């Protein structure tokens, strides 16, 4: 036989179950959110690591050769040199460094050389000492991938 008191107890038990259920759902939702957040972070990090691995492999493939020069014009303090990209990928020269026997001076460039193509560079070499014929000077070509291609030339 149902009384008013037992009906109220049943009703209160049902409310407790709903609250409990909501808590369980909240715990599950929180766990899923944390899992998704962690997963996204790991995927983003993995993607960056893969990109950097590709960057390093491409860096190791970069190769140049001197086609002609270096020809030094002491009067105008200029150096002519032709470089060929003999690597499989296009390369960008971003800086050229010149060692004049005393100090390095770097100037910023942006020259893209496609694979197999050549480019003629005229580099200003200030401060070359004409009276030091035994000194060895140097030009350093720096690529966007961080490779250095050094060409030494005597002052003669």
């Amino acid at each position: 036989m149902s009384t008013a008191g037992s009906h109220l107890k049943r009703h209160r038990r049902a409310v407790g179950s709903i609250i409990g259920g909501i808590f369980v759902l909240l715990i599950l939702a929180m766990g899923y959110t944390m899992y998704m957040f962690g997963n996204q972070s790991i995927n983003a990090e993995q993607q960056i690591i893969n990109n950097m691995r590709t960057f390093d492999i491409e860096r190791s493939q970069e190769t140049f050769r001197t086609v002609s020069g270096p020809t030094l014009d002491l009067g105008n303090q200029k150096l002519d040199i032709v470089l060929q990209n003999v690597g499989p990928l296009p390369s960008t020269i971003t800086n050229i460094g010149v060692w004049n026997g005393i100090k390095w001076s770097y100037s910023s460039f942006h020259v893209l050389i496609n694979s197999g193509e050549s480019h003629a560079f005229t580099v200003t070499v200030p401060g070359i000492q004409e009276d030091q014929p035994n000194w060895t000077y140097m030009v350093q070509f720096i690529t966007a991938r961080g490779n250095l291609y050094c060409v030494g030339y005597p002052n003669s």
Partner: protein
Amino acid sequence: MRGRRGVSEIVASMVVLVIVSVLGAMLYNTSQSTFASQQSDLLSSVQTEIEKAQERFEIVSIENNGQSSVKANILNFSPPNTIDIVVSAVYVNSTQAYFTVTNPAIQKDEVKQFLVTLPSGMTFVSGKYYNLLVVSERGVGNVYSWKSS
């Protein structure tokens, strides 16, 4: 008497309700700030790890500059869309040295010159080999070896 007992039950329920509400609000607020702080720390550490993995720099040349200092030219060749590299420490043959530069940040594709000075009492000896280790703020290092002239 019956009426007064009823009022006290209502008051008691309201007091319990207020206490539970206040405690609940405090708990919610604390947990919210704790979770936000943890999430921010995690994001920051992941971001630092990503930037560290992307950081690429190299010492491209060294110039002599007297007996106790050299000039180091450092190139930042990190991939596009990365932030600058900031030099934080330099070591010569495992001994911490000092560096002087207007701004220790190096932008992408930039070659920046740093004056590296040995600690007082130390000098570069002609003909001896030296290693220069440059360390960035994110903990990435690069070593350059040369013979002092």
